[in-house]
């Protein structure tokens, strides 16, 4: 016999189901008066530092149909590349930027949208700088375990080419699935759950 490690098993994930809005964005689904606002619905205020951007997109299923009942959460560094988190040891992030947002894909057109700032660069474990990116987490009916992915910025071609995560993608034509399309200050990031242009999802 050896000693026991005594670790617990992670609670298994279950789908968020079709009524995820009741729990995560009740005001969005007309359950008013319980919470003042839906958490994560506003990421910036007047004092937030950095370049204002809008991140928008849709989630598409394997038949190309819009997923209109998903909830997207994003997590990102501030404009200086610092996370507003107790685990951030490199400095103090912008107090006017929490870095976290939550948005449903709208029932009418399947679109999600975040008003935020462009994140600065964050180091990889070995000190190399990662390219600026936003971390995404997607849940919906039919998704048994939340999907992690990242959005990168098209104008950062040089940084993207040296990004430690993007470099790990074996099939190079898939790198583009993580790079948003820019139009002015709006970045469009469509997430494809399945099919020829399936988004690269992460086990991270």
């Amino acid at each position, binding site marked *: 016999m050896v000693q026991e490690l005594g670790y*617990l*098993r992670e609670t298994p994930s279950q789908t968020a189901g079709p*009524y995820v809005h009741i729990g995560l964005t009740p005001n969005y689904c007309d359950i008013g008066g319980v919470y003042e606002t839906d958490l994560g619905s506003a990421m910036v205020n007047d004092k937030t530092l950095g370049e204002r951007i809008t991140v928008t997109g849709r989630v598409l299923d394997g038949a190309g149909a819009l*997923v209109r009942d998903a909830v997207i959460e994003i997590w990102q560094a501030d404009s200086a590349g610092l996370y507003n988190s107790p685990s951030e040891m490199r400095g103090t992030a912008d107090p006017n930027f929490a870095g976290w947002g939550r948005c449903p894909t709208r029932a009418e057109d399947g679109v999600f949208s975040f008003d935020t700032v462009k994140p600065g660069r964050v180091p990889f474990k070995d000190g190399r700088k990662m390219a600026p990116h936003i971390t995404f987490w997607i849940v919906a009916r039919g998704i048994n375990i939340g999907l992690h992915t990242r959005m990168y910025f098209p104008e950062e071609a040089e940084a993207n080419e040296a990004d430690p995560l993007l470099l790990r993608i074996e099939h190079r034509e898939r790198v583009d699935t993580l790079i948003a399309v820019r139009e002015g200050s709006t970045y469009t990031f469509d997430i494809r759950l399945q099919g020829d242009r399936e988004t690269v999802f992460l086990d991270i």
Partner: protein
Amino acid sequence: MSDLTNNKPEMGAFFARDRAWHAPALTPGYKTSVLRSPQRALLSLDGTLSEITGPVFGHSVIGELDNDLIHNFAKPGESAIGERIVVHGRVLDERGRPVPGALVEFWQANAGGRYRHKKETYLAAIDPNFGGCGRSITDDDGRYAFRTVRPGAYPWPNGVNDWRPAHIHFSIFGHGFAQRLITQMYFEGDPMIWKCPIVGTIPDKRAIEQLIAPLDWGNTIPMDARAYKFDIVLRGRRSTMFENRKEGN
């Protein structure tokens, strides 16, 4: 080991997720998963700062009735209809340590199995005093608790005659974005658990049993509400004491 002697925030990456313990993405018995399941292999990578970190939700975001679903949508002086219960438990990580400050959000159908949602079409009645959402932030021991009514079972369009067992949805936000988890809690003794295609997406019976809350007779409040205990385990974190460090760090 600094993490045993003080409360310094932890910076280690999270334990790799045991994907065999969770449901796979494609589970044809749950039909909606067929077109919503990624088919390519996930890109596996040890967590970076972007996943090790996560936002903090202060206790100030929580309102007085947020953890009382019997009253938080009810008209003054009224309350939701149904079997009164208390659901409580701890949020721990895989190392068995409590996760304080975790945001726990929950939502559910009413006692008749009806959700308050525009997409819901089940003929069971809406309870005018029941919204169906609540939230809590765990205390220093990782504890949370809320009052609600026991949700009803309900039919759903999947197979010809599929029903969801009574359940409460949980969303848990721990300390790192990599710990993010959504799951569902079931009730001890419900025979419908084993007939449900969504429960059946999980391959291991022991993992399913981890989602079934036992009746907690000790914490049942006499003449008021029965208690169910539901502990939740999030991914554990490595100690950073052995991590390679760059020169000068």
